[in-house]
Structures are given as C-alpha cells and as structure tokens.
C-alpha cells in the first residue's frame, strides 16, 4: 500500500503495461468523445479555411474599394448598430418586466418573446410585411396618416434586424436580472429610491455585463440577418442591401466578389467578438 502511494500516478496505473499505453491512460478522454469532437471542430473550421484559401488576395484591395462593397458594409454596420440600440431600449425594460414582476400570462409572454428565435427569418419578414407593409395592418395607417413607409427602406432593414435580434438581448438580460439579487432593489427602496431610480442606479449597473453580452449577440445576429431583411426591405443597393444580401447577389454573378464580401463579414464579426469576449461574455 505504502509503495503504491509513493509511486507516481501514471506508474501506478501502467504497472506491467507498455509505456505507450501508460501515457494514453493519463489523458483519460475516451475515443468515443474525442473523435466526434474533432470531427465537429473540423466541420466548423473547414468552411472558414476554405474561404481564406479561395480569397483572391492579390486583387483584394481593388475589390474592397469597388463601388457597392463599402456602401453595403457601411449600411450593414449602421443598421446592425441601430437595431441593437432599439433592442436595448425596448428589450431591457421587457426583460425587467419578465424577471422582476408577475402578471397574468407572463409565461406565455416569455414564450412569445422567444418565437423570433425559432421562426424562420423569411416567415418573420412576411409577417412584418403583413403588418408594416404599405398595405399592412399598421403600415397602411402610417402611410396615410404620416406618409411614413417602412417596407423596402433602410428603416425597414433596421426593423427586420430588430425583430430577429431582440430575443437574444431579452434572454441575456433576463438571465442577468434573475442572477442579480433583487434585495439590492429593496435596499435602494429603504434608502428612498423610487423603483425607477433603483433600476437606473442599482439594477442596471449590476446587470451591465449581461446587457453588454446581450447587445453583442444581438449585434452579431443583426449583422448577419438575411431572410427577414430581403423579404421585408428588399435588396436595393445603397438603401437596403446589407452585406449578407450583397454576398447572395454577388454569388450569382461574381463568385470572387462574394468571397471577398464574405471575408469582410467574417473579419468584422470575429474582430468584434474577440474584442468583447474577454470583457463581457465570459464575465456574465
């Protein structure tokens, strides 16, 4: 017994076995888990590598400055950012209502909030068209009363992106609110803070990492939005043609252009995620 205890752990296991076998026993991961894990990883990374391999690196500068590319990129960044702002402004209060209050039908509301998450984006686009389209339920009234048209405009792009991205923010913020101790709000109340003051000065700072993580996810989802955007806002260069739409269009005419646009989108997404990951996503 004493001799065993003093022996190094791998020697104890590999008693009488080959050194090779002994080393493998130390790593412990069963092949049935390692093999699918590696296949999964390769499957995730291979297409990205393919994109890099097929990128026309020599003509990259010209292609990047080609008319339309920068327009699409600018529009994508702008609309995704605006959509994220709208999501934060509307989604944080919605998350607060779901996490901190109780009202009849709350469970149903929580389920409905996540519908855009599972709904095919094209269906979302059709639904938006039916409501906000020029002949839609609200769109007709907006058009007649204020002369405001949403469908097939840049505002329409923001609307479509907001629709698909909002659940990401609501879910992230609601989770952060549930994790934050509500008694801090009680402490604030005993100090004379109204519910609004308590929210603004205590709750919001406490869940800020959650809001930031949600906003990042939200922004990434909005940046990649395709289905709802093309259905509700169309594909007009300079007005509603975001990067994903430009990629899709380029794919039919100029594969090299599609590759370059895809690469830009990839670089932007990875840069943002890498920049924020350590500060916010892991913190929440």
């Amino acid at each position, binding site marked *: 017994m004493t001799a065993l205890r003093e022996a190094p752990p791998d020697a104890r296991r590999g008693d009488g076995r080959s050194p090779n076998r002994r080393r493998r026993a130390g790593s412990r991961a069963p092949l049935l888990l390692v093999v699918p894990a590696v296949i999964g990883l390769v499957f995730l990374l291979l297409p990205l590598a393919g994109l890099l391999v097929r990128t026309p690196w020599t003509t990259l500068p010209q292609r990047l400055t080609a008319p339309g590319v920068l327009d699409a990129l600018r529009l994508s960044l702008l609309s995704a950012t605006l959509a994220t702002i709208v999501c934060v402004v509307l989604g944080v209060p919605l998350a607060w209502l779901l996490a901190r209050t109780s009202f009849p039908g709350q469970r149903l509301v929580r389920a409905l909030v996540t519908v855009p998450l599972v709904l095919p984006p094209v269906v979302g686009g059709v639904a938006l068209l039916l409501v906000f389209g020029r002949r839609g339920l609200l769109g007709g009234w907006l058009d007649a009363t204020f002369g405001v048209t949403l469908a097939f405009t840049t505002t329409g792009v923001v609307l479509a992106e907001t629709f698909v991205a909002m659940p990401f923010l609501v879910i992230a913020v609601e989770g952060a609110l549930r994790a934050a*101790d509500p*008694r*801090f709000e*009680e*402490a*604030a*109340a*005993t*100090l*004379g*803070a*109204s519910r609004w*003051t308590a929210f603004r*000065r*205590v709750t919001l*700072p*406490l869940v800020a990492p959650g809001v930031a993580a949600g906003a990042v996810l939200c922004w990434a989802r909005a940046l990649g939005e395709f289905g709802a955007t093309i259905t509700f806002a169309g594909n007009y260069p300079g007005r509603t043609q975001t990067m994903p739409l430009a990629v899709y269009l380029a794919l039919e005419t100029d594969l090299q252009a599609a590759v370059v646009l895809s690469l830009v989108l990839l670089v932007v997404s990875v840069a943002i995620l890498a920049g924020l990951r350590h500060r916010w996503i892991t913190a929440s």
Partner: protein
Amino acid sequence: MTATRPLLEAHLVVDRGVFRLDLAVSAAAGEVVALLGPNGAGKTTALRALAGLLPLDGGHIDLAGERLDDPATRRFLPAERRPTGVVFQDYLLFPHLTAVENVAFGPRCRGVRRREAREQATAWLRRVGLAEHAHRRPGELSGGQAQRVALARALAVRPALLLLDEPLAALDARGRLDTRAELHRHLADHAGATLLVTHDPLDAMVLADRLIIVEDGRVVQEGDATAVTARPRTEYVARLVGLNLYRGRGAGTTVTVDDSFTLTVTEPLHGDVFVAFPPAAVALHAEPARDGAGTCWRGTVSGVERHGDNVRVRLTGPVTALADVTPATAAELRLHPGLPLWASVAPAQTRAYPAA
C-alpha cells in the same frame, strides 16, 4: 410605557397560510428595542413589514405621528417614502459604488444635492471611523467595515426608525466583539427609535434597552434584560439565559409538574406558576439525599459536556434538567450517558413566579 405616545406604535399582522405573525411593537424616541427569538419566529417578517417591504394583512403601523400601513383603510406607504433606515443582515452594500457613494445614495434619493450628499456621507463615514476607506468598494472592505458602512448608510437618511436585521450575525467572533461595543455607542447617539432583530441573546442584552421575545409569530415575553433573565416564561428564553424552567400548579410551597413530579419552593404560590433554577443549583448523588427538605428525584444522564470550569450534565427522568457539577464530582460519580443517579435542588435556590 409612559403616558406620551411612543414614536413607533405598531400591531403587525401578516398571514402566510401556515405561518401567522401577530405582534404588537412599540418604541420610544431614543429607545433600542430588540426582537429576540429563534429562527423562523417571524422576526425578519416583522422588520420587513415595518420597513415597507411587505404589506400588512392586519393591524397598523404608526411612526412619528404618521400612519404608514393600515390594511383596514387600504393605506400603505411604500418603503421609499417611509422615514426608516435598514441595516440588512448581509448589509447589501451596492457592489458597484464606493463606500462614500453607498452612504450618499440615501440623501441623494431624498433630494440632497450631489456635493452636499457627498459631504454628509463623508461626515457619517468619519463618525463610524471609516474616513480613510471612503473610496473603497464593498468588496475591498472587511466584514466589520462593511457593517459600519451599512450602518452609516442607514443613519444618513436620518430615520425616525432604525431597523437592524441580525446586525452582527455575519461577523466572526473577534469582529463581533469590537462591532458590538461600537454599535452600542452609535445606537445610543441615535435620536430616533431603534428596533433590532436577533437570535443572539448577548447581542440583544448588550444593545437593547428592552427585549421583546418572539416565538411562532407571537410575543411571549417582554421587558428589560434583568426582568427577562430573572423570570423566563418559555423554554426558549430559559435556554437562552441558562436556567431550568418548569411550569406547574402551585399549592403553598409545593409545585406539581406533569401531575407526577413535585418541586419544593420557598415562596408560597397558588395556581399556574413557573419555577426556575440555575443548573449549578442541582446537586447530583449516587444515593438518595438524606435530608428531606429539598426536591429529590431519580434521573438518568443523557449527556455530559464541558461548560466553563464545570461539567454540564443533561438529565432525563420525570423532568429533563441541566446540572452543573465540578470536575471532581463528575469524576467521583463516573458520569457517563446512561448512568442512573439522584438529583436534588434546595428550595432556596429556586425562584417561583406566577405564570398567568
């Protein structure tokens, strides 16, 4: 109480189905009242109701001439509009604010300008001896320091009623000793009423002018520390103050407990009475005591443990009792669980008082 109306006058009724809180609490200006009771007695519920974090189901709360809660007239002043300050058990200092920002939070919410609020907060921190830690965040403070910041934060709103929930429970023994003495000083300086909730009799007796003992949502005893320790009225209080307590029927100087066990006392009493005596008054013998003047009964040792310089013996028998004996006696009797022996108490060592 005196003829003048107390600053706080409340009858708290909270119904929680299986649990019902129903207690009357009052406190004069400058008075420190402790709600003392076992866990689950409803002390924290009472505190939350007073703070406005929980609406009453019945009764009322009057504080400084204002009715804060009265379900009968549907009156309920929410926490943020009550003149109360709360020190929570785990302090609940806002982790994203520095000590001085935490203390300034209350005055800011009550309309004091930023600079003025900061000056007030700094002054409060100086009073609790934390001026040099003003710019630390709660995570960088020790337990005792956090407790003092929490106290300063609650006092900074100049509450008519200061509520403290287990103010020393989160501290270690050493911190508790220092903080208790200091807390006592600050509570003495507080002009308003103070109500503190605790399950620690020492905290209650050191800090409070008057104790209200709560069990199962009801007041079981009320009075200053001397009265409560001299004449406990429940098993819980007796255990807190370290006395053996029996309830029985008195007939002259004999008190009958549980129909079968009789205790001899000195004061003649009739009817429902309590008899209390300290464990040190119980003598243990291997043989029945020869003089027949006191109470003598046969019991069995169920536990033996050290208690200060003595040995505390837990006895079962016609009644359960605690006895303190010297180590020499313990050795002589060879005390061990299961040992049958004789116990006796001299009448002069007992205290009997009416239970009704």
